[in-house]
């Protein structure tokens, strides 16, 4: 975490090996080994390398949430990390959320509450929704938590809390109230 070559220009001679190299990704419980360039983002690797196109590219800058996946059980933005940095990590994408043909409760709740319109942000919303419930169960506070000094429990996952915690996922069709209802129901169920 030093200065990132401020004001510099790219120097090819200084780069060591820019060629594709094999990386082993554990995606949705399956191990895949394939060659990626060092600059290939996890998003690009999932979509172009593995054909897992459920994960969407909305902004490619970490500003919309459409590319949300889970890495080692945590929600992250796949556009803002490199595939080469995921060696040995457990990655779950929207395609991996169903179990034995059964939708995840958050997926079910999104259908029931009409938590989407065009559906383009939905993969990211669902992946965030699943994580939001886990984070609440783990006692994580949020910016909507009135007093962070006090313990937080999943019982405190109010609609206001859900709104704040889901705010990293933009929805331009703007289904927000339905998304909140879906996450709230899924949280209540389990």
């Amino acid at each position, binding site marked *: 975490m030093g200065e990132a070559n401020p004001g510099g220009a790219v120097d090819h001679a200084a780069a060591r090996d820019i060629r594709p190299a094999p990386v082993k990704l554990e995606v949705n419980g399956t191990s895949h080994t394939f060659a990626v360039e060092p600059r290939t983002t996890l998003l690009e690797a999932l979509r172009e390398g593995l054909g897992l196109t*459920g994960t969407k590219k909305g902004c490619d800058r970490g500003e919309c949430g459409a590319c949300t996946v889970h890495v080692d059980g945590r929600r992250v933005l796949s556009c803002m990390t490199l595939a080469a940095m995921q060696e040995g990590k457990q990655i779950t994408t929207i395609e991996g959320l169903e179990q034995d043909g059964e939708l995840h409760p958050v997926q079910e709740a999104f259908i029931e509450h009409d938590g989407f319109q065009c559906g383009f942000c939905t993969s990211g919303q669902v992946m965030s929704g699943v994580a939001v419930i886990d984070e609440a169960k783990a006692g994580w506070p949020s910016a909507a938590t009135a007093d962070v000094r006090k313990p937080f429990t999943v019982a405190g996952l109010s609609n206001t809390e859900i709104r704040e915690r889901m705010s990293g996922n933009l929805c331009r069709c703007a289904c927000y109230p339905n998304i909140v209802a879906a996450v709230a129901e899924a949280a209540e169920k389990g």
Partner: protein
Amino acid sequence: MNAVGQPMPRTDGRLKVTGAARYSADVPLDGMAHAAIVHSTIANGRTVSIDTTSAEEAPGVVAVFTHHNMPRMNPTPEPWSHLHPHGQSYLPLLADAVHYAGQPIALVIAETLDQATYAGTLIKVEYEADQPVVFNRETAKEAVDPPPFLWPVASSVGDADEGIATAAVTIDQTYTTSDRHHNQMEPHVSTAVWDADETLTLYETTQHIFGARELVSIVLGIPPEKITIVSHFLGGGFGGKAYVWPHTLLAALAAKVVNRPVRLQLTRAQMYSMVGHQAATIQQVVLGAGEDGTLAGIRHDSISPTPVFDDYIEYAALAARSLWAAGTGIATNHKVVHVNRNTPTAMRSPHEALGHFALESAMDELAYATGVDPVALRLLNDTEIDPYSGRPFSTRAMRECLTKGAERFGWDERTPEPRSMRDGRYLIGQGMASAIYTHWRWPAKARVTVHQDGSALVETGTHELGTGTYTVMQQVAADALGVAPEKVTVRLGDTRLPASHPSIGSATMANAGASVMLAAKAARDRAIELALAGRDAPFAGAEPDDVLVADGRLVLARKSLEITYAELLARNGLSTVVGDGDYDPVEEALGPKAVFSFSAVFAEVRVDPDLGLVRLNRFVGAYDAGRIINPRTARSQAIGGIIWGVGQALLEQSETDPETARFANRNYSGYLVPTNADIPELDVLFAGGFDEEASPLGAKGLGELTAVSVAPAIANAVHHATGKRVRDLPITVEKIL
């Protein structure tokens, strides 16, 4: 039980929540190359030299195009029309001229997107730059009269100025709105595939597959039957994907040259300049009224920017033509300023959402000037006759919207004085506004096939942009055929299907929906014929009108006879019966009645007076959109429209750098759209009914309507909360402090 009117969950819901729905960038193709556009960093001038040597030598690069080697294109047809829907007339990579910042000047094709993008950065461009012209209050003084393209530019009914001059009370104010961008979650993408027989398939982000085919055919000079446009799922349109933008043409031409599939996806930043946006407006509204608030005259004038090569008009003053009665007259006019900017386009809700901010803010100012309650003021000036055309409205449930909306909101408990309502440290403000929205009647075709197993297939070249098209078409066909909705499969988004109109202007339910209903009825009628006169006809001798359809059966109730579609087809040795629907309505302007949608919306804001922060507390929208086909998807569209309006009111603006004429924040962190945390509970109610003039389905447009007048309702609420009248959108901290 009828499917229409039921809140059915989306039939494509499972595809969307599992990531299985394939959007245009998700289509897998062998041997595909990726394209990246290099765009101009100046806004006015020309390229003197473009050195592509390093780019061509970069790893993975397949080809580099500039105006020196780009295949030629035919000019886009004039004038603009929905049939010839070019986003802008100026086609890039044909000459060295630069007319706007972000104009494509080179195109790189490479094996991977990273390779194409990086090679693009190696292209060295020398410019000869001139000072660009930008839109502001100074340049607006040079506004000119544009030619019309959708409606007359100016209108005058009666004598507005006379009504204003002799009025007891006048309001004369200027209102301004900002440049805005659609920022659909899904970036525009074109994937072009040429087959050996010179046919072109484009996997396209479009709200208008047939228009895209027509335009591509003209510009590329190939017959339309050689072109297929596919768009099964669209990641949001909002008007921004209604027309063909230059990148589509570049992708198609480049794929031909490199002889392999090419995918060209715009970056988020490029979505600010390579496709349209909503132009800013400077509007003047003058109202003249009696002391009781009765309007005598309305004058509404608007100025908006347009590029040096196109005359795009934001018809902001359109609203004033038909919203309220004015005893003496109504006059409107539009002017444009030519600037160094790409061409604006329709953005939810084009024209109306801009004009209503001005007009319905002015109405609130009139309410305060006369002491008449804002709801009462609107009831007072309501009209059953369209002031512009002189025709009666087909249906106009404005009164119901106002009264039911006010009741649901609890408007009676509002104390009218500004700063009179509080919640602890917060000022509470309540404001309202009404809206009128244009209804479009367009031709549409559909085909419905009933199969031997009793299932049905709907085929029509319309689009799913999030509005629930797959679901509502299923409902419409199911009822017309008398089968269960789950027996109906719907195919959309492919020009090999029957031709339909653009999915814009909230027209799809009323028009494409009508074609589906007609097709399903035609298939049903064919089946009834078989039941009456086919082989071993079960209903022989009965009249067609005696036959009902329900639960997958044809029923002759009088004789307690029935037969399933499946049995009927089997008995006649048929694998299918097919019905074609050809909906060809008279253009709205030529009909006997004026058809519009209406609303009254109510906003409560919470203002932190110390920090200048305005947040929406609650919102009630009451809508007359005719008959509602699916209350669940309709409600979703409505809350989406409200939130779209919240963005317009409080957050969204694309500022232009005065020196470079570039849009300044070409990303989601600088261009602010509402987040989940910005939005409270929203309450939606439907106050309209069946409108036979609007559509055989009785439906009027909804999606656009719901984004109209949110901004003035919020601005009026802010005035109520703070006493400050903000006439410039968005309403940000510095305008409140």
